[in-house]
């Protein structure tokens, strides 16, 4: 796995980028629509819309319902013949589960992935009313399927040899809270939180701290920080933590920004069968969860 490029691009680049397949999800907000519309105008790649239903462990790919275990073979089937080149993956609209399975497929075929992510201008808060709760609370997801293991990316431990959780934190207290509440210290013995600093915008990091800080009291190691929009930095941070904890099973919870989650996915993929597992709660994202579009990132990773 090689990190080749980290660029900021504009619409014209999206229109001309070359690839065999363009993977995307259902757009729920302005930035999602912006990226998907632009890439749909790009005639070069085959368009594949992917959605994962964690409650049924089933993918919907271009309208067809595909069981998780048939995911790779189905992608092989619908791919342009003799695919050897590049794919575009829109991480703005795809969730962590879709990203992981698409990237694993790309890894096995030794493809090059061009991962797109568009930052929003803003996240509207839940309430207009001035209160601390309202100021830091956003309607990002309506509910979640809950922490359900993804086959291929899960490590189990015993209550005797417990795991170390690395939580990439974001705006939703509920996500870390539910994880720790479910576990009750049975399988997780320590937590290293990673906050996305610098954040997309100067005030955003404050929300992550406000939302998660109570939950980290008593259970957490010192926090770590890595850039909210740079997956490669997240990757390096995770690599460093793993080096410091050589004998531990690491559970990684990518519940912060999407670029951090991309970094986590790449790290998990480069450590398959290496005591690194995923903890993920499969949120059901709200429509209109953000407004506007600002920076569009292009992260290029070669699995060749």
């Amino acid at each position, binding site marked *: 796995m090689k990190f080749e490029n980290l660029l900021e691009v504009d619409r014209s680049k999206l229109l001309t980028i070359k690839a065999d397949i363009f993977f995307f999800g259902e757009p729920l907000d302005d930035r999602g629509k912006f990226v998907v519309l632009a890439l749909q105008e790009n005639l070069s790649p085959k368009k594949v819309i992917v959605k994962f239903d964690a409650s*049924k*462990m*089933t993918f919907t790919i271009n309208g067809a319902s595909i*069981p*998780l*275990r048939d995911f790779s073979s189905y992608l092989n089937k619908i791919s342009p013949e003799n695919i050897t080149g590049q794919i575009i993956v829109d991480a703005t609209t795809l969730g962590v589960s879709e990203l992981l399975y698409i990237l694993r497929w790309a890894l096995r075929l030794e493809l090059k992935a061009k991962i797109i992510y568009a930052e929003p201008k803003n996240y509207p808060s839940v*309430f*207009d*009313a*001035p*209160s601390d*709760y*309202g100021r830091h609370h956003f309607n990002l*997801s*309506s*509910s*979640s*399927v*809950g*922490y*359900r*293991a*993804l*086959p*291929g*990316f*899960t*490590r*189990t*431990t*015993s*209550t*005797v*040899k417990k795991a170390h959780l690395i939580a990439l934190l974001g705006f939703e*207290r*509920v996500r870390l*809270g*539910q994880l*720790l*509440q*479910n*576990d*009750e*210290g*049975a*399988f997780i013995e320590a937590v290293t939180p990673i906050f996305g600093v610098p954040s997309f915008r100067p005030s955003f990091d404050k929300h992550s701290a406000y939302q998660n800080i*109570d*939950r980290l009291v*008593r259970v957490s190691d010192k926090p770590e920080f890595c850039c909210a929009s740079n997956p490669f930095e997240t990757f390096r941070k995770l690599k460093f933590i793993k080096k410091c904890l050589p004998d531990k099973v690491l559970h990684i919870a990518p519940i912060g920004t999407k670029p951090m989650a991309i970094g986590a996915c790449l790290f998990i993929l480069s450590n*398959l*069968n290496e005591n690194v597992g995923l*903890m993920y*709660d499969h949120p059901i994202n709200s429509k209109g969860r953000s407004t506007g579009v600002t920076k569009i990132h292009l992260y290029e990773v070669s699995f060749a």
Partner: protein
Amino acid sequence: MNSELIKIFAKNRAEEFPIDVWGEYVLPPNYQSINLFNFDKAVMVEGGRGSGKTMFLRYHCHDTRFSNKRENVAVREVRKIGLYLRPDTHFCSSITEEIYGASWKKIFSKYILINVLREFSSVVNNISQCNFEKSNFPSKSIINLELPRKFNDRMRTNLTYISELGTLSDELLAELNDWVSDPDYFEKPVFPDTRSILKSIIESFRDFSEHTKSTAFTLYIDEYENLTTEQQELINDWIKHGADDLIISSAYKKHANVSRSTSGKESLVLRNDYRKIDLEDFSTNEFKVFAAEILILKLQGCVEESFINEYRKLLCDESLINHRLDNNYSENLLAFANNFLPSISYEDVAKGVFQDKTLEKRLRDFLVKPALHSTKLTPELFIDSRFPVESILNGILLNRPSQSEKYILEKFDELKKSGDNTFYKSYTDVLVGALLWIYISAGRRTIPIYSGFDRICLMARSNMRHFLEFCHQCLVEYKRFSELSETVIPSIPVSIQALAARKNSELEVAKVVELGRWGNNLRFIVNRLGLFFQLLQKRKSQSEPEIVHFGIEVTSVEMLPENIKLLLSELKIWSVLIEYQGDTKRKSHLDFTSYEYMLHPMFSPNFSISFRKIRKHTFSVKDIEIIFCGSEDDFITFCKPYLNKSTSESDFSSAREMQGTLFDEI
């Protein structure tokens, strides 16, 4: 008091304790009827969140029973041995038919097998180190107990002793994990029949000594409700067709939707196949003694009274439980607990209103004065610091249309002259509501009614974790304000308790979001119910004070819309709402379900509402839908009529101001 003590109280989850809980666990008051060793078939252990299920199971398992903290352990204890299993439900959540086809059963059974093998290895280790009474039981040599003859062939291993199974299970777990993650890459593990492997080990164990020849094992599966339905059904198969040598029992949250079906047509039948016990099934008084017992266990080393140190020895041993039924014992304990968390009477809280200028002003200028119609009357005529309770009641009565101010004044003057308060006696039940009104009106966040051992026990509603979290918060607050000796436990002042109650309650409300996958919804429901009850509490007339529970206008809960049923069930599972069977006679009259729901009283201080179950509000199904699932605008519209009743119209000229008021409290 040192920080160590605060840490001791912070530990209130079983997982934070060692697996050997001997000396750390207080047997519940109803232990004689729920002693797991008295059952010869499966037992389903039910209890709310934080009711001590895990500690209870661990007390009955080998790590505790053969603890080397014990002396003269009876050899007969080896006849019934408990094994503990808390499945990694996150890992197990993906072991399903959808993912692995028909192989899922084999994978799940192997997962159980691996974990139970580890337990067998611990059993022989624990027995070999246990201090048994004098007997011919060769406990030390059990460490050399060999594995069954065909074990190695069937498991593809090369081991000799049962004590080696611990290391093996780590290896097998990693092997299984690798294979389920990537079946194409890794070699397929063997999947021998779990039950016959376990049976063969039990046979080896039974052959070990005369004392173990009829040993029965019970596997206690904790967090049973978090397994998938199919996984529960597989375990139910084992329960249904289990043998006497390996009984399978489980523990789960009360109200959780656990399956009683098997994978075939049969279901588990209560009494025939299993017994059920409820860990919170004891009276308020029993809970108080239980809480006091846990208090003395936690405060060890910080109490000088010698009787307390004697009592402590009785707490964790079923053979001494009769000593704990003695009246003197419970009286002394309760006296100790009441001294640690002293109470203030409502009458004294009323007196306090007159020692606090702001509160007195709220009573005079905001409760009494606006209610006076006659210009000749002044608020001072109805208020007298020598009669604080009656003065406060005057404030409420003056706001009731049925009461004339002249008559009230007459009765108050009579009281002042003769001391006769007969008139007020019938209204004393509104005192708590009136006090809450005054404190809310003054914007006070700490209210002294949330204090005192008895009231805190009432607020905890038989839930020990709530009680301990309150105590923990008390100590944290105490330490902020006082320097204390290392060894002497003082009384926690009422003001500190009230502050701790508020902070603890705020934390409890904030934590609701974490409770299950619908946590976000539950959090909104708690806020909305709390704010709604607070609105009712703000009524000046207190015609229906202290409403914190509700009924629903529906003939049966089953008739509720699906989403409401689901949320109601989640609220019960996580003990956010407490369900009561209300007055069943009224059901036939009004044709509504008799189930009632109370917002857990630990949330009360956050909303400045009562923690007592006094009066009920009845919601229509539509009301409930708005509270549970409605938009913010729907909820504000729903609240508005109550808002107008509780305050004067002019207080809120626009919906936006009302919204600000409602949500400032969140």
